[in-house]
């Protein structure tokens, strides 16, 4: 789909058949029309060759219309099976960073407290979501569990909201989706922002680690994990080069997670537990019929 021209936060634009029209630049169009008409008349008068005149006139009055359309980003996953709930596991290497890509299919995301049971066959993918503080075991940043706020505050600007089963990844100081999550029995948590509207977001923590991100790539939701220890910056840059539009961090390193593939085979991503925290939380994708 063709994208409209960028607009700044301090501009308004009346939406007409020309999406690039700006309220404060209305004078441009009459000026352009006048200029084009003037140029046409000049060309017609200057050209003494009838054939050339006809050619020019045709060029002016019947221009070839070329519609530029930005190529749609092709989704990575396979969507042939619209019924079975499973996780598709892909691999790719971006900027020499090997990546694991997990795409849950036909499953509904939600948050849960406590470590998910690997025998729970209703779960097709899970990984840790929001950070918890080591000193008091509480969740860092705002957190909503099935409509119930368990934590408040803005320590990280990235957020994930799940409302009516739809997952949104974004970056904002204040998001109305927090309130909406509380009103609609939804879910909400905050994490480090990695990519905001295709732009890399720098983060304070230095050093290298296995990195994990919840990503929106052209509307396709996926979890992307580095196979090698990477800095925040390099991992975020790889996500951008991977055409991810928005991404937030997920508890990384060797944090616990698992998934079930198309053949119901259980694959444990990492088996490291951090028992003892009351608010240890996970994002899970579940089989719709078993919620």
């Amino acid at each position, binding site marked *: 789909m063709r994208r409209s021209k960028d607009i700044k936060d*301090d501009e*308004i634009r009346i*939406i*007409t058949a020309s999406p690039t029209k700006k309220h404060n630049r209305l004078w441009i169009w009459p000026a352009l029309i006048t200029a084009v008409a003037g140029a046409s008349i000049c060309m017609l008068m200057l050209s003494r060759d009838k054939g050339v005149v006809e050619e020019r006139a045709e060029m002016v009055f019947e221009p070839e219309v070329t519609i530029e359309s930005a190529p749609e980003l092709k989704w990575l996953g396979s969507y042939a099976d619209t019924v079975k709930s499973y996780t598709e596991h892909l691999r790719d290497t971006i900027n020499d960073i090997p990546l694991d890509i997990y795409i849950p299919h036909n499953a509904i995301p939600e948050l849960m407290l406590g470590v998910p049971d690997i025998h729970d066959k209703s779960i097709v993918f899970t990984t840790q979501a929001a950070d918890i503080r080591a000193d008091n075991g509480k969740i860092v940043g705002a957190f909503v569990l099935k409509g119930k706020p368990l934590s408040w505050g803005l320590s990280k600007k990235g957020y994930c909201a799940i409302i009516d089963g739809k997952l*949104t990844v974004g970056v904002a100081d204040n998001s*109305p989706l927090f309130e*909406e999550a509380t009103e609609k029995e939804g879910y909400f948590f905050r994490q480090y922002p990695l990519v905001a509207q295709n732009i890399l977001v720098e983060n304070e923590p230095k050093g290298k680690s296995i990195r994990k991100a919840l990503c*929106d790539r052209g509307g396709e939701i996926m979890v992307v994990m580095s196979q090698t220890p990477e800095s925040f910056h390099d991992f975020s840059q790889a996500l951008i080069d991977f055409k991810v539009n928005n991404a937030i961090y997920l508890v990384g390193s060797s944090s616990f997670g698992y998934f079930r593939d198309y053949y119901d085979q259980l694959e444990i991503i990492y088996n490291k537990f951090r028992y003892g925290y009351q608010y240890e939380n996970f994002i899970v994708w579940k089989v719709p019929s078993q919620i």
Partner: protein
Amino acid sequence: MPTHLVISKGTELLRVPLVSLMYVSAEGNYSVVVTRDSHRTLMSMQLGQIETLISEQLGSSGSIFIRAGRGLIINTDYINYIDISQQVLVLSDCEGSRHELTASREVLIKLKEYVESTVKK
């Protein structure tokens, strides 16, 4: 003359009568379509894409809609109150549907000028 806006992407389709569409706000890579019944529908489409749809489907009828900054498309028929100092924009049908939005001062100044200019015509 078109009477509805149809937003269709992937497995979703939303069809909204123009008179019911109050505003659309950006939410990350998504857009929230808000109608007079205060229902909010989250669509997996960026606000710029919704703007393009409006211009393509509605043509000159789309001119009742204004893109206000990066985060909003509003139906100008429902502009009810502007307070530049408080950065408040209220959209209302004065029949029970009222939405208080926040916008930048520059946007509100331009919106106010726009509404005033339509009165003077």
